[in-house]
């Protein structure tokens, strides 16, 4: 039987651009350039490698996000995923992590899955909790923060490099896996891949397709509230000296003045 892999990918504001909040204190996703979160490219890459090893596998990429989030799906499809699902609904605006996990879990169940692969964290919210929330909701093992992953005979194995130790983990499928940026460079889409992606199917689902009510999600349904957001005063450059042989001395002088030496 075919191995059904669902990769969750997020469309995020470009970190090198001007990221900011909208008036309602949600992340502004309209006024800024967005892209497939770089950390989710690693998830797509590992899905492709696992699929290559399996006899028969199908990769679905899933995103919850605004209209433009389709770009993230297209990128993943051009890397080699088979099909896409875009959950889009005006009522989703302002959904928090708990709410997003509800929508993603419903969509994953509807799509059907043996293996869910996510990134380690989104590059905008960087909470890194979605994978654990998905495992809790789906009632399947979480095998998270892997820098190495493999799937064989219905078992997923991987290495989790923590602060105190490096752990070898193992669980039976179905399972939720998250991979880190140590799992291996993501491939660039080939020209052929980009052309092929245009013909790959992308389904659009809204809340009613997932049997969800508007008040379960969105800003109103959120279990957390951002009360204020203030731009941090930008750091200002201090003294810059050119090293003409005295640079180390000058720096030591500065450090001594600040009582570091």
């Amino acid at each position: 039987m075919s191995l059904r892999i669902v990769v969750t990918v997020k469309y995020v504001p470009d970190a090198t651009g001007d990221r900011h909040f909208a008036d309602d204190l949600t992340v502004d996703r309209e006024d800024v350039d967005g892209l497939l979160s770089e950390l989710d490219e690693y998830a797509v890459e590992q899905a492709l490698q696992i699929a290559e090893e399996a006899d028969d596998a199908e990769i679905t990429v899933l995103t919850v996000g605004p209209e433009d989030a389709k770009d993230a799906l297209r990128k993943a499809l051009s890397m080699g995923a088979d099909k896409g699902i875009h959950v889009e609904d005006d009522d989703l605006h302002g959904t928090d992590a708990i709410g997003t996990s509800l929508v993603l879990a419903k969509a994953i169940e509807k799509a059907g899955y043996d293996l869910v692969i996510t990134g380690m964290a989104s590059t905008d919210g960087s909470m890194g909790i979605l994978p654990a929330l998905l495992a809790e909701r789906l009632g399947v093992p979480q095998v998270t923060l892997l820098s190495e992953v493999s799937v064989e005979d219905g078992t997923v194995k991987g290495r989790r490099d923590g602060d105190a130790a490096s752990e070898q983990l193992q669980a039976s499928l179905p399972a939720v896996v998250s991979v880190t940026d140590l799992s291996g460079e993501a491939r660039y889409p080939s020209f052929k891949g980009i052309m092929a992606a245009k013909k790959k199917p992308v389904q659009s689902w809204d809340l009613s397709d997932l049997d969800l009510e508007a008040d379960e999600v969105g800003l109103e349904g959120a279990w957390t509230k951002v009360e204020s957001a203030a731009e941090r005063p930008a750091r200002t450059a201090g003294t810059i000296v050119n090293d003409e042989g005295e640079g180390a001395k000058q720096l030591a002088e500065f450090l001594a003045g600040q009582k570091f030496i």
Partner: protein
Amino acid sequence: MANVLVYVDHVDGAVRKPTLELLTLARRIGEPVALALGSGAESTASALAEHGAVKVLTADAPEFADYLVVPKVDALQAAVEAVSPAAVLVPSSADGKEVAARLALRIGSGIITDAIDLEAGDEGPVATQSVFAASYTTKSRVTKGTPVITVKPNSAAVEAAPAAGEVEALTVSFSEQATGTKVVSRTPRESSGRPELTEAAIVVSGGRGVNGAENFAIIEALADSLGAAVGASRAAVDAGWYPHSNQVGQTGKSVSPQLYIANGISGAIQHRAGMQTSKTIVAINKDAEAPIFELADYGVVGDLFQVVPALTEEIKARKG
């Protein structure tokens, strides 16, 4: 006064500093009750009592070490049921965030991650977070259930506040999910003997400009002359010159030391995300246009192979 449940991060009974910081924050909201799990749990009690824990709940079972995350969630949920706290505080480690998230979902509560400060508010605790690579500061609140909040290291000062710290065994029954993910083996990380990166007062980091694993010796020598921790940019880690556990930035550690010295690091936004809240920033870079100079309090435009060893000698000479 209401209880605030604090999840304890410890290594065989030795409480890690971020947990003691949590006790300081917990006392702003109520009376801290600590939960320590796994081998050595009971030995945490004296340190926790000294810093304000009125009670220390403990549980030990092989499941905590043999399976990932879920057994700890089961225990934390049992503790919430036993104590009915006003809030649950968890250190923002990889494990901590996952444990906190699953707990929040189970008890029907909102969750805030990576707080850098916490105050009592009229409608419950208010958490400060630093977002978008530390370019914004937000204040947030949990609006449903018992607030579950994970807190970053260095968010508060460790304060002595002696309390009873009475040890009480917690009964935990494990859920069906508890044994889902087996920890087949565990290789402890070797200690460098230097201060912990996230806890150090001074961090000395090297980037692509260091140009080779062997050259990190000059970064380490500077660090040792200052009693500092060593950090690295992702470029240096990707090249295999320094371990990932030392990476500073978005996908590494966030540090907020008194002094951060960046050597041969350009200052990409993802690197800045992990260090720009440092009190004083110093940069050594041969490119006067490198963005790192935009945030440096003191910068030296020069070759790090000249400047760094000379600086190390200067410091040693001054320290005598």
